[in-house]
């Protein structure tokens, strides 16, 4: 019953005309940018979130949440029609979505994606509302040592588990933390790595960094590249959008399994939607009576990952909102945006600002509902957007990045910082270094340092004292186990690589 009262409070906040309008605007803009091929959720969110700076916090957060769902949804549209995943999490959508489009069933695929997103999202929101208060209450007993160890676990898990090359992921997390030390040290007031520059005393803004790494870096690497993907004109007509009875019958069970897998995986640190979709797909294929249909346009292979993706997107907010520890780079960006609006997520948020917390959760749901209402009639519009050639789109994206960067602090120097991070982002793409862990390290770095310093002060400099605390010690042990496991894996692969190299390569 308390939950219903909370929902009512949240609805009261979310369903004002202004907030509904901003939710709608966020969903619309998010889908618009997310549909553009190659622009993933991170790039889209970093491009759009300066717009929210001028709104009051609740409206801004609601719009931000709308942008977040919109970009995810837009990404699946591009995956289905063009076979170009905007993010790793929509790569699985390509597997069966693109074959469906080629069979002329693009309309059905997009329709089912929309429904699946809504079902998965709603499921995730229920889990989020049930578990957040419990975790927050438990987390009230956490001290700096517990926070420090949870953050270390989050960073290690996020940079190793989902990455092809764990050493590169870890290096980028550390690099991000190092970049975050630029600016005034919060404890001593000393300016670090400022080299006498006044503007560096404030440090780098998360928005400038994200816009450079993911926006400018993305444009630089995709301009001039050959794009041979073309939409089939037959799939763009969308003659038949309504799924058959057989489609519905096949979809409901995968949808429920996808939602459950997504909700569970999404809440764990470092795994997030990209692991959830692969697991949901693998499970469906395993238990299917006709696994050979997968990859040729099986609707189960579309519905399960889409529900998992959206459920995981929701439950990823559990650690972010209740502990203030984001599990992924996207969540780190959302956390950064919350902090810009003066909100510090943590266990006290639910108690101290219930209308904001529950308003946000309800607006998540309204955002999902609006996606459903907006996208079913507008699918045709999104498809037409995909037909615009990229060489007309990227100048427009660049202009939005420039205005966004400038408007944050009305400082032209910020535009140049975006350009600088654009170079870094492009260089990292050339070097095949992942940018998402860098952003996560950048956001969590200062928090890790602060909590570590505090816990060391409390323990009077005794490291053993921190390790012997039950929660902190266990979490640190898990982190260490992941590190060792990764290291062993890397050594095994290295030995394999050597063997391949020693074999004569001209033998074939």
């Amino acid at each position, binding site marked *: 019953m308390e939950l219903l009262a909370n929902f009512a409070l949240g609805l009261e906040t979310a369903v004002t005309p202004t907030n509904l309008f901003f939710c709608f605007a966020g969903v619309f803009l998010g889908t618009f940018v997310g549909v553009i091929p190659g622009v993933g959720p991170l790039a889209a969110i970093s491009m759009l979130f300066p717009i929210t700076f001028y709104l009051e916090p609740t409206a801004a957060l609601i719009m931000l949440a709308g942008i977040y769902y919109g970009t995810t949804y837009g990404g699946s549209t591009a995956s289905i029609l063009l076979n170009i995943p905007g993010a790793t999490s929509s790569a699985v959508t390509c597997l069966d979505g693109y074959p469906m489009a080629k069979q002329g069933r693009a309309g059905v695929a997009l329709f089912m994606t929309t429904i699946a997103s809504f079902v998965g999202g709603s499921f995730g929101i229920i889990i989020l509302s049930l578990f957040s208060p419990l975790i927050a209450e438990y987390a009230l007993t956490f001290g700096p040592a517990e926070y420090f160890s949870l953050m270390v676990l989050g960073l290690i898990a996020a940079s190793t588990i989902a990455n092809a090359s764990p050493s590169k992921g870890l290096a980028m997390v550390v690099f991000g933390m190092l970049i975050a030390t630029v600016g005034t040290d919060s404890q001593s007031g000393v300016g670090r790595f400022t080299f006498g520059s006044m503007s560096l005393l404030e440090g780098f803004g998360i928005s400038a960094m994200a816009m450079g790494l993911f926006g400018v870096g993305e*444009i630089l690497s995709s301009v001039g590249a050959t794009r041979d993907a073309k939409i089939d004109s037959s799939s763009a007509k969308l003659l038949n959008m309504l799924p058959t009875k057989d489609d519905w019958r096949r979809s409901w069970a995968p949808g429920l399994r996808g939602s459950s897998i997504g909700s569970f995986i999404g809440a764990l640190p470092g795994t997030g939607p990209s692991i959830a979709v692969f697991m949901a797909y693998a499970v469906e294929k395993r238990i299917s009576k006709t696994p050979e249909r997968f990859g040729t346009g099986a609707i189960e292979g579309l519905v399960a990952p889409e529900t998992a993706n959206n459920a995981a997107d929701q439950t990823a907010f559990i650690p972010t909102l209740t502990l203030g520890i984001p599990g992924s780079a996207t969540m780190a960006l959302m956390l950064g945006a919350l902090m810009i609006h003066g909100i510090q997520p943590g266990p006290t948020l639910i108690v101290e600002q219930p209308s904001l917390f529950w308003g946000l959760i309800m607006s998540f749901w309204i955002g999902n509902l609006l996606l459903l209402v907006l996208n079913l009639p507008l699918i045709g519009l999104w498809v037409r957007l995909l037909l615009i050639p990229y060489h007309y789109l990227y100048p427009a994206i*660049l202009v939005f990045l420039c205005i966004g960067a400038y408007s944050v602090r009305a400082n032209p120097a910020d535009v140049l910082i975006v350009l600088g991070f654009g170079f870094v982002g492009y260089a990292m793409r050339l*070097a095949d270094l992942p940018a998402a862990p860098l952003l996560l390290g950048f956001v969590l770095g200062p928090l890790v340092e602060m909590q570590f310093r505090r816990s060391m002060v409390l323990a009077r400099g005794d490291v053993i004292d921190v390790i012997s605390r039950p929660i902190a010690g266990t979490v640190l042990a898990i982190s260490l186990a992941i590190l060792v496991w990764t290291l062993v894996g890397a050594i095994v692969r290295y030995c394999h690589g050597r063997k391949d190299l020693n074999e004569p390569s001209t033998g074939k």
Partner: protein
Amino acid sequence: MLDRDYRDIVSGLGLTLTGSAAALYALSEYNIGTFSRMGPGMMPVSLGIILAVFGLVIAIPALSRRGEAAQLKLRPIVVMSISILSFALMIEKVGIVPAVFFTTVIATFSETQVPFAKALMLGAGMTLLTWSIFILGLGLPIASFDWSF
């Protein structure tokens, strides 16, 4: 194919260099402190050292591995930089309308596929769009036109 994975060797060594430079600079400039009272230098020094180690972890296995050559596209980099620079220089001097127009038109030169007339049309369209969103809609305190000379 190259006989070694130079991409990973260069990026790994670059990270090692960055990490060591940061650690050494922080070591000489900032107070390290003790574990119970950490100074501002503790974190940068330890992060620099860890980064340097990971750089080596990336570079050393790449020595005994074949790799692909990375392709550097110079034209988009130069054109985009000029485009972004011109925005930064113009936004406060001449206002958002000319800044957006020139930024858009310059950016189209990154690829050879856009005819000049269409680039001008795109510039005009973007100017109208951004003006109506940011000035009319959101009311940002940016001058539309500011020809002060």
